[in-house]
């Protein structure tokens, strides 16, 4: 159902009424916008102030913490030096092997009746040993002990070659190892 309002106000008055109504609307809108603008201004000012305060506080705290850290710079220096040395020493150890430790552990596995006559090694992990054995069973025993995983896991290659027999009846052989 359509309802239509009937304007009963006569022409002149109606015009004045319309003017007053529009003026009121615009005034309200103007005051509203002014209020919003002023409120926005106050809010933004206060917010800005608060942010500035927070930033200042953070800057003060940062300066204070930096000063405290500077006071402990000797500790930091020590740590820096230790870390530097640890890295370099670690690198040195990582790139080298300790042949004499290997020799000692090999000798522990050596049955009586086998003697090393020469030992050659380098820091890359290559080891060459010339040895003599009184008989083949001892050599066999030695080879078995070398294949023990607690020992052999440290090497890429373990080979026994050039097995020969000397005039005295002893067996000579060459043991080559390559450390991991």
């Amino acid at each position, binding site marked *: 159902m359509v309802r239509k309002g009937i304007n009963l106000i006569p022409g002149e008055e109606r015009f004045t009424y319309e*003017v007053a109504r529009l003026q009121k609307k*615009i005034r309200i809108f103007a005051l509203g916008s002014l209020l919003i*603008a*002023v409120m926005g201004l106050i809010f933004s000012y206060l917010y800005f102030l608060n942010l500035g305060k927070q930033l200042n506080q953070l800057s003060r705290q940062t300066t204070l913490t930096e000063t405290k850290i*500077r006071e402990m710079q*000797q500790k930091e220096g020590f740590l820096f030096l230790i870390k*530097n040395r640890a890295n370099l020493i670690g690198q040195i150890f990582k790139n080298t092997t300790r042949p004499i*430790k290997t020799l000692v552990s090999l000798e522990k596995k050596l049955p009586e009746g086998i003697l090393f006559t020469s030992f*050659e090694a380098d820091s*890359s992990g290559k080891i060459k040993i010339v040895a003599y054995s009184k008989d083949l069973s001892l050599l066999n025993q030695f080879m078995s002990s070398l294949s023990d995983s607690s020992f052999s896991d440290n090497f890429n290659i373990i080979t026994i070659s050039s097995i020969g027999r000397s005039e005295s009846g002893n067996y000579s052989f060459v043991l080559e190892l390559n450390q991991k």
Partner: protein
Amino acid sequence: MIVLKILLKKWRLFILPLLTIILSIGLIVTVILPRFTISLSLLDKIEERKNFLSGLTAKENDLNGLDENSLKEKVDFSLSALPEEKNFLKIVSTINKLARDSQVYIESLEVSPGEVATETAQLKAPEVDRLTFQVKVTGEQSNVENFLFEIEESLPIFVIRTVKINNSNRNSQAQLILENFFTKYPLSLGKVSAPLAKLSKEDDKLFETLKKMKSYPVESLDITGGGFESANKVDPFSSE
């Protein structure tokens, strides 16, 4: 249409409210919006500062938690393992002491400062300088082995680059090329805000290994005989 008519006829009545509206809009555009943009950047800055500060605070806490004595001990160990400068006397003294303790005789000792013989033998530690020694020792087999073992276990770090041991009866002769290392201190600590270097488990393990190694004080060397054999050998101090 009627509004337009009213505005045209009675425009004076609307000046003030319209000016107010313009003023409000002007205020919003020229003051509030720029301030809002600045506030946003300030918020970013605050966030950035907070992160920076939390990093600094973590560093401060870490530094507070460090024991200075333990650090000093580690510094001593690391510097005795890898000194700042080459200390020829200390190395020779260590080799000499180990030889004496192990009852082996040093036949010869040569030093080549900073020289590396073969490329393959070169260690991959470019920041480190090295001194290379060639040592020839003789003695009883077990003594020679003991000497070599102790060399590997002593500080400053010795790396046996090559070793040749020849055994005959119970005697041994060993020829070895030893490398000893030294390097400068790190130059700068960096910024205060730089994160604190932390020691890893591997580093701790390394220091445990270094603790087990022995460092010997420098002692006076008593060298008799040897030297270069020449018909023209004249000691310039002999006439003093």
